[in-house]
């Protein structure tokens, strides 16, 4: 009797290819085509991050023996979510790619899952996929917070130095502990 993991392992290539297609279909048609064809990681960073990311994620999901799949998958999720967090997506759209794996598994393996009665295993796997979706949400929020933090830092960097250097506000880099000022003024 095959397990669900065996079944997925056996069909890994076509499953990943279909998952990739579905994710790329969230972009414009001509873009999906280009990103699928172009294999150079430097001139096609998005396509390659997705391609390698989903492979890593699937491996983590299947190799989950000690329950550390979330930690391992986080790196691959980050590669993809970090990109989608700055593209033209709503938050739900940005992290939705993970659910597309459920779609692929159900649609492509349904007959075999039914024949071998692997529904319990499927439910367990789908729960793990769901938890990765929540993890993706954390990563997404981190990325967006980072963007805003960078904006604030940029504004501060410009304003503060200018004011300090124009002697409009005082700086404290020359003042020693106890209030003694090292500078002659």
């Amino acid at each position, binding site marked *: 009797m095959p397990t669900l993991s065996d079944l997925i392992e056996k069909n890994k290539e076509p499953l990943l290819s279909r998952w990739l297609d579905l994710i790329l279909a969230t972009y414009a048609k001509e873009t999906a085509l280009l990103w699928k064809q172009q294999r150079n990681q*430097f001139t096609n960073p998005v396509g390659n991050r997705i391609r390698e990311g989903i492979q890593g994620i699937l491996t983590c999901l299947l190799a989950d023996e000690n329950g550390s799949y979330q930690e391992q998958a986080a790196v691959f999720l980050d590669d993809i979510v970090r990109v989608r967090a700055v593209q033209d997506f709503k938050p739900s*759209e940005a992290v939705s790619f993970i659910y597309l794996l459920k779609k692929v598994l159900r649609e492509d393996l349904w007959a075999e899952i039914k024949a071998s009665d692997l529904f319990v295993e499927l439910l367990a796997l*789908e729960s793990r996929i769901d938890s990765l979706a929540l993890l993706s949400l954390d990563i997404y929020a981190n990325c967006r917070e980072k963007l805003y933090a960078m*904006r604030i830092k940029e504004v501060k960097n410009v304003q503060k130095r*200018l004011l300090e250097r*124009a002697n409009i506000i005082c700086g404290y880099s020359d003042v020693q502990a106890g209030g003694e000022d090292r500078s002659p003024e």
Partner: protein
Amino acid sequence: MAKLPPPEELVKINYSTPVKGWMDVPADFRPGTFSYPGKPDILKYLGFPNPREWSPTDADWKLPPDWREIIMKGFRERLDKYRSFKVFMDICVRCGACADKCHFYIGSGDPKNMPVLRAELLRSIYRGEFTVAGKILSRLAGARKLEEDVVKEWFMYFYQCTECRRCSLFCPYGIDTAEITMMARELLTLVGCNINWILEPAANCNRTGNHLGIQPHAYKDMMDFLCEDIETITGIHIEPPVNKKGAEILFITPSGDIFADPGIYTYMGYIMLFHELGLDYTWSTYASEGGNFGLFTSDTMMKKLNGKMYAEAKRLGVKWILGGECGHMWRVINQYMDTMNGPADFLETPVSPITGTRFDAAAGTKMLHIAEFTADLIKNGKLKLDPSRNANLRTTFHDSCNPARGMGLFEEPRYVLKNVCENFVDMPEETIREQTFCCGGGAGLNNEEFMEMRMRGGLPRGSAVKYVQEKNQVNTLVTICAIDRATLPPLCDYWAPGVQVAGLHELVANALVMEGEQERTMNMRQEPLPGFEDAEEEE
């Protein structure tokens, strides 16, 4: 068994892209993807048309009533004036060689960021309004009429182009998309659609000589401030010459480096280098800006702002001009200055007073790039350098678009860098030299409200940095552009956290052994030099 809802129902998303022609997809303005419009006061000061309060997210952009005639007239004038523009409108065969070369397209996947389609936004109007075939065949000939949505689309996508010219490198006809963007921005300016991050620095530059509107006394104050830091680090007191008549050389550099991290360390590096050489040179509080945001506005603005370089050289009576680390400043100098404000026949071809080298490549403009100047000094053994002071840095070099593609400056900065730092490795070849990827914030788009878009456009550069960070433990990205020094820190922070950004002459200053210096224990950032980490802790 009950019917199972599909998983995607959870998020109710239609995954397929709507199958619509690009002409039918209007520009959707969302915060993070556009820069704020020019402020009315600034437009009035510059004498630019249609000053008003407006936002790209408004339905009504308050265009002048005769906006269509204004744009058509401007379009016609430019087609007549620039033969290249006319050729670029006619010659594209839509081969697609440029399609996946733009960093904004690579990062976003938005087809309107494909250079061919970006130019098509303008070409379709050209065909629809100026060609017979277009007028008759309309959409069949890829033509359309000028509507308000077209103006909005232009505003979105021509302010999502950094004029980096990477696409032009791959075009078999050499179509310069940067010049197409320049034309489109000029047309937009005619009806009052421009961005404040470009106009305010241009206005400031026109008024005080630099982007920030720093007045002469304040500029001098800031220099003194930096000299105090130099004294803390080296023990040497320097009083750099300012507005000195009769000096041999006038030095001009971007004002961005005088006040913001990490540019100030490069600025201090120049002061130290020139002092050590005993160079007969001067700074200017009038030509206190190398950058030229006129380049991103209109040819007349660019010419006007550039004019001060030669005017100040003439007033001070110098022999030639030395220029600092900057990006677009060098495009203006190398490609336009000579014909725009030259010939500068009152100046001489730059000759290094230290080595005697004559720089014939700069014979036209009479303005020499600091990387060439310093590389020549090192080649002739005129500098005493201690690269061990940079031993904690593992560096790579970001070719800035304009010095790289605009003037072919590849080897000199690398030569200097390798001589002041022993740990250097290049990023993959498809991301450097003439193929270099933009920082995502050039051509006046380095504003904070555009951060999301900058990160999209910065992905290709970020990926290459991350690669050398992981493979070669690179921790410092060196660059010779002031805008890069402002835009690359957040880019690295997002795509390759842990990599810092430095200017070339910051590292030169670290390594420079100066006559009469105290024992150097800290670098330009006042962090302990390698080997002195413990000393700081003991204090």
